[in-house]
């Protein structure tokens, strides 16, 4: 559906995007994960033809963006990071205006607007001015405005920034529903859990460069990040610790916390073996903590940086 090949873009001396390539299959959710200023929005603007790449090609649904920008804009819906709405217009007026830009006949658009308001669950507020809406409701209308021309691809640029958990869940439901209906989705975020929740594939971007991409499983493999099991023993005497660690070098004792740490490929597969080894070595387990591999740890491993809000 989307092929991005060796795309680069500079603004003056700043290289915003460096030799970026990725492919997105039809009906999939592709996550672009990175901190603010990593180049996510520039990639979105390149995809939507607003920014011309200095190098490389972008093919969307068989159309090169250099050849036919208008077609690209018609098959793509973009939910901007900002709440780009007219505060003094009602939700309905906003939707009619934004939908009207795609030359949809008014009666048809009217039906679409009402249906879209249903999707984002704001039909009961359709005639209220946007300025009276909460941040989360504005975000939902912000998404709705990008759905009116029935795009094949939806680009969501950080759609949950500053949204409370309830509205965030609502937005997630909308995204999942659209994806289930076959829409291809590009989702930029700096929230790990969001990328983990939806994305079939994730590209991790840092200072304009994609440092890794693939499914969560593939990223785990690339980064070589393993699951971690932490064990607190009832008796952490030197004799017992020495017996456990000398028999299996995967066991490491952390003097600071007074715990044993074991890295493994799969917690569910390896935990019984680990427990048996400790018990056979005379150790009595007081507590066990498990920490599965997540994007947080992968990102940390790949970039050496933590991804913060």
């Amino acid at each position: 559906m989307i092929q991005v090949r060796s795309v680069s873009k500079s603004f003056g001396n700043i290289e915003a995007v460096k030799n970026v390539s990725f492919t997105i299959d039809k009906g999939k959710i592709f996550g672009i994960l990175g901190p603010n200023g990593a180049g996510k929005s520039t990639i979105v603007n390149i995809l939507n033809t607003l920014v011309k790449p200095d190098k490389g090609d972008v093919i969307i649904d068989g159309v090169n963006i250099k050849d036919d920008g208008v077609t690209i804009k018609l098959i793509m819906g973009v939910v901007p990071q900002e709440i780009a709405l007219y505060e003094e217009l009602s939700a309905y007026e906003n939707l009619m205006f934004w939908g009207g830009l795609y030359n949809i006949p008014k009666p048809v658009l009217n039906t679409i607007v009402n249906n879209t308001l249903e999707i984002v669950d704001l039909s009961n507020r359709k005639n209220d001015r946007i300025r009276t809406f909460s941040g989360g409701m504005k975000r939902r209308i912000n998404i709705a405005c990008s759905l009116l021309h029935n795009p094949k691809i939806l680009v969501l640029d950080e759609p949950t920034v500053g949204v409370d958990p309830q509205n965030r869940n609502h937005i997630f439901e909308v995204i999942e529903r659209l994806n289930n209906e076959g829409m291809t989705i590009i989702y930029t975020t700096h929230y790990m859990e969001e990328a983990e929740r939806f994305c079939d594939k994730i590209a991790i971007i840092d200072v304009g460069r994609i440092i890794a991409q693939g499914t969560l499983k593939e990223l785990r493999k690339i980064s070589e990040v393993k699951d971690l099991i932490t064990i607190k023993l009832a008796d952490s005497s030197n004799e017992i610790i020495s017996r456990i660690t000398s028999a299996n070098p995967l066991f490491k004792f952390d003097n600071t916390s007074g715990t044993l740490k074991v890295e493994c490929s799969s917690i569910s597969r390896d935990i019984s073996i680990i427990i048996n080894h400790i018990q056979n070595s005379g150790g009595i387990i007081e507590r066990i903590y498990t920490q599965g591999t997540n994007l947080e740890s992968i990102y940390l491993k790949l970039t050496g940086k933590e991804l913060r809000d």
Partner: protein
Amino acid sequence: MFKLFKKDLILFFHDQRSVILTFLLPVILITLFAFAYGSIGAYDGRSEPVKLLVSDLDQTRSSKEIIHKIDSLEDIRIIVSDSIKSKELVIKGKYACALIIYKGFQDSLEAGRATQIELVYDRSREMEIGILQQNLISTLMSSTGKIIVRKSIEEYLQDQFPDIDKSTSDNILRTAIKDENNKIAIKWTSIVGEKNDTKLGLIQAVAGTAILMLLFSVAGVGTSILEEKENGTINRLLYSPLKGSTILYSKMLFAFFISILQLTAMFLFAWLIFNMDLSVNIPGLILMILATSFAVSSLGIFLAAIAKTRQQAQNLSTIIILIMSAIGGSMIPLFIMPAILQKIALLSVNYWGIQGFYDIFWRTLPLEAFLPKILILIGIGIVMTLASVQLFKKRIMKL
């Protein structure tokens, strides 16, 4: 483009502050200025009579005759008072001036000595003093002059012809000082603004204020582009199949439309409330409104185009508009400004607009006479539009 225009129009009328700033505030200002400038160029050529305190300490035939003559003047109304109170009233600012005719006035006249007469005045009230000066000098000169001349002739006749009889002497005197013989026949005729009922002050108030407020309104429209850039709606518009130039032109069209609406509303207000005769040159008026609206709206957009942020645009617009309106004649009538400022005024859009409306309503000139002013306004509009398009393409539409 029409959809964007319609959206801006709905937003404009949803925003009560904009509507008040565009229509109500100019109406209030026009009303105030119309009263302030109301007497300038009044139809009958006269303003309210100037009140003159008169204190007659002489109480003679000559002093009473002079007071009577002054009282008969249309531009002056006499209020009789005593000399001390008159001076007090002038000092307190109740009256602009007081005429005191001292005791011995008639005797001095007849003796050919300096006359015992004094005008005390408040220098800050120059306009009233000016009117008095013009009227009093001529009246006093003709009255006292007559007495002095009569006395001189009488003395000459007595000296040269001691035996002359009284009737011959009276005939000679009557002939010598006959009013008609002494008058220089200058006919004063006002030839500008006589064909219509509209006062110059009202034209100044309407045109000056309307253009000033128009500049503020369209600067607001221009600033709204930067506001849209800041809140992301411009980018969102660019995500749609619209072209960047369409977005800009729709804003320009909206600013132009609001300008026409505002100017038309101001002139209709002046017609309804102040009886301003709009029918003097309707095609000319329409063309002037269109040309002024085009120039002013382009300038407003240009002011927004040269700013980087909304705040900067607001500050810059306020400063430039106020300076331009001050030198261009929107705040103070140009004809009372020094010559150098009148030359600098040519650089402002206000000047060409206001002068064009003067040509229509005051000078009642035909269209071809003020067509150059219309063309200059259109020229300003074209230059500003081209500059704005380039600046906006560079700064605003760039992502």
